[in-house]
């Protein structure tokens, strides 16, 4: 027993010593928070990228810490709040100005000005850079991109006597084609052609295509025009030949089964994010499908989709850590370089922000190529300080009330607008 204890103790000591030698104290440690925790598929490739950086130089040592996607946001919010944020980390692109205005982010434009060749700015999408800009300066860089497209099931098209040439591009075409794809048996919907409230299709997404939004340029809520009302009616009445109960039961069954209705071949066409493509690929689905841009209004329609992405940011904890700042900048340049962006795309399956890297990544993948086309037409939701979740919690109850008929469309929009107005007044009263 005594011998075993001695051997164990010796082993622990050796491991401790060897661990210490991997964390050189003579280098400046840079904390990097990411979303590839131990146990996740992306952990090993992410770790390899960090190791490669550490091996490439003798001044800085990056210590990566991975959290799951669901845990990450609380952790980073608390860390920023308590001024213990990592030197560099990921966050969301749409609310960069909120953090920048609070002084917790370093000015990236200043770093680029001092090191002009550090970042290939022309390789990043301007629509994403706009969201990372506060008072004409970049306070973050877009790290990943997302987009929304129309997925269509070619097998279902074929069964309905349609071809890829029939893929709809306008709202009226969408309705005509969708109706040909509905399958109903004994009053129960077996297959649905399309529903504008399914998947990742949103009311604000449809509004954008008609040149409308929830808020005006001064962030005052709108929602009170006839066009807003008409579009919500269009969503509500798209499948009006079915009862709301039939539609809810069909949709709810999809949710309960925990599978995407398009991936499970229950819906013929659906608006979804690029993430669905990864799900279908990973599931080795054997049906034929394609993607296209989301159909737009017949008159004056705008080709636009809701796309967002992660930002990469350097955090200023107010401690005047110039070494950390410089180290984080070196690592940021590394992460945003062509090769690393390509490697990250391969590791995570994400669409990365670097256009050149993504073109290479998608060169043998026509579906991904089409999705990359749509990234250029993507637009992120505006950040509204008095209602950060304006598209989520604040809107969903009114949306479902309108769709279910619990409220008229006009009433739902009016009530939603009143709620935003009240939130705005209360926010201003506490500033």
């Amino acid at each position: 027993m005594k011998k075993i204890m001695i051997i164990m103790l010796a082993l622990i000591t050796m491991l401790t010593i060897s661990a210490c030698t991997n964390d050189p104290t003579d280098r400046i440690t840079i904390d990097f928070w990411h979303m590839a925790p131990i146990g996740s598929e992306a952990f090993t490739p992410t770790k390899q990228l960090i190791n490669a950086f550490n091996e490439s130089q003798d001044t800085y040592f990056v210590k990566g810490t991975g959290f799951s996607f669901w845990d990450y946001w609380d952790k980073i919010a608390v860390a920023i709040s308590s001024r213990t944020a990592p030197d560099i980390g990921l966050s969301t692109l749409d609310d960069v100005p909120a953090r920048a205005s609070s002084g917790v982010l370093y000015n990236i434009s200043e770093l680029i000005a001092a090191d002009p060749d550090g970042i290939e700015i022309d390789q990043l999408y301007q629509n994403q850079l706009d969201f990372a800009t506060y008072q004409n300066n970049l306070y973050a860089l877009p790290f990943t991109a997302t987009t929304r497209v129309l997925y269509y099931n070619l097998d279902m098209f074929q069964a309905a006597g349609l071809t890829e040439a029939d893929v709809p591009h306008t709202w009226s075409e969408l309705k005509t084609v969708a109706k040909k794809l509905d399958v109903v048996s004994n009053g129960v919907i077996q297959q649905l052609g399309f529903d504008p409230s399914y998947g990742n299709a949103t009311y604000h997404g449809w509004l954008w295509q008609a040149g409308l939004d929830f808020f005006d340029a001064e962030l005052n809520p709108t929602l009170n025009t006839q066009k807003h009302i008409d579009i919500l009616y269009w969503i509500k009445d798209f499948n009006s030949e079915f009862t709301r109960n039939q539609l809810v039961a069909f949709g709810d069954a999809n949710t309960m089964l925990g599978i995407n209705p398009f991936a499970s071949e229950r819906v013929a066409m659906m608006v979804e994010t690029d993430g669905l493509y990864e799900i279908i690929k990973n599931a080795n689905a054997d049906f034929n499908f394609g993607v296209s841009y989301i159909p737009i209004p017949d008159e004056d329609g705008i080709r636009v989709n809701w796309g967002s992405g992660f930002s990469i940011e350097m955090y200023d904890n107010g401690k005047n850590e110039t070494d950390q700042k410089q180290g984080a900048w070196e690592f940021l340049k590394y992460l945003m370089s062509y090769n690393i962006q390509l490697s990250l795309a391969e590791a995570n399956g994400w669409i990365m922000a670097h256009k050149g890297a993504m073109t290479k990544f998608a060169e043998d993948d026509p579906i991904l190529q089409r999705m990359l086309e749509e990234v250029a037409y993507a637009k992120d939701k505006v950040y509204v300080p008095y209602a950060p979740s304006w598209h989520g919690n604040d809107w969903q109850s009114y949306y479902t009330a309108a769709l279910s008929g619990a409220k008229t469309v006009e009433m739902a929009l009016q009530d939603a607008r009143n709620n935003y107005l009240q939130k705005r007044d209360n926010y201003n009263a506490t500033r």
Partner: protein
Amino acid sequence: MSKSSSIKKLKKQENFIGYLFASPWITGLILLGIFPILMSLFISFTNYNMISDPKFIGFENYRILFTNDNLFWQSLGNTVYHVIIAVPLGIVVGLSLAFLLNNKIKGMGIYRTLFYLPNVVSVVAMSLLWLWLYQPNFGLINQLLKPLYDLLKMEPITWYLDPKLSKLTLILMGLWTAGGSMVIYLAQMQDIPVSLYEAAEMDGAGWFKKATLITLPLMTPSIFFNFIMGLIGSFQVFTMAYIMTSGGPSRSTYYYAYYLFDKMMADKAMGMASAMAWILLFIVLIITILALRLNKYVFYLGDET
């Protein structure tokens, strides 16, 4: 050195050692208990978005909540509805179960275990399970009720999808865990002296009279305990609505604690959320103090007064 001073010194030493041993607990209480509570009180008087420093704004958060926040009153109304129905119903079901399981029949231990078992299931797992059971289209409950629907020629009940029924649906689901209070009732029921029942039987009392004139009065301490605990717990109802309905449909299950959570996580309004927490504390405190007045109707066995 006099004897009294050396005793004093010894006492001081003892006190010091005592505090030293208690220090981990005291430190924990101060750092993890009292400090966050006092901090949340301070934050409730500030505008704090969890990024910038808190800005003191006096009672503004409280004023807004009481005078210009429709959702505050709606969520409070939903919660009060839940408390008014769920607490008495929980007591009735718990007591009924205790009466049923206070019999000497074969396998009673198994029955008692079965009724208690839902209490060891996490609320999240329970909510997901009941989501399946209540599912209007293929859920087990509607499948069982199908003959009734056919007979009455009515549409199947949509349970948690119907704004008028959603709160009741969650309350009914909550009764699944009534076995927890049942155990307490059962323990007290078995503590009632048999001699009282024997005397009542000699006086010609039947089951109903024995239950209402002996069992129930002597059960009042545990009923009272479960009532108070139920009140406090019901005001904090959150998880079931979060998992099953997301506060819907039409905010019909948007409870006070849910709104508080959204104020903090979605709106990043930590000051307002803290104010809500303190308002809830006061509401629960006042109702509990009022409820404690019912103590005079509680009969404690062996209490001469």
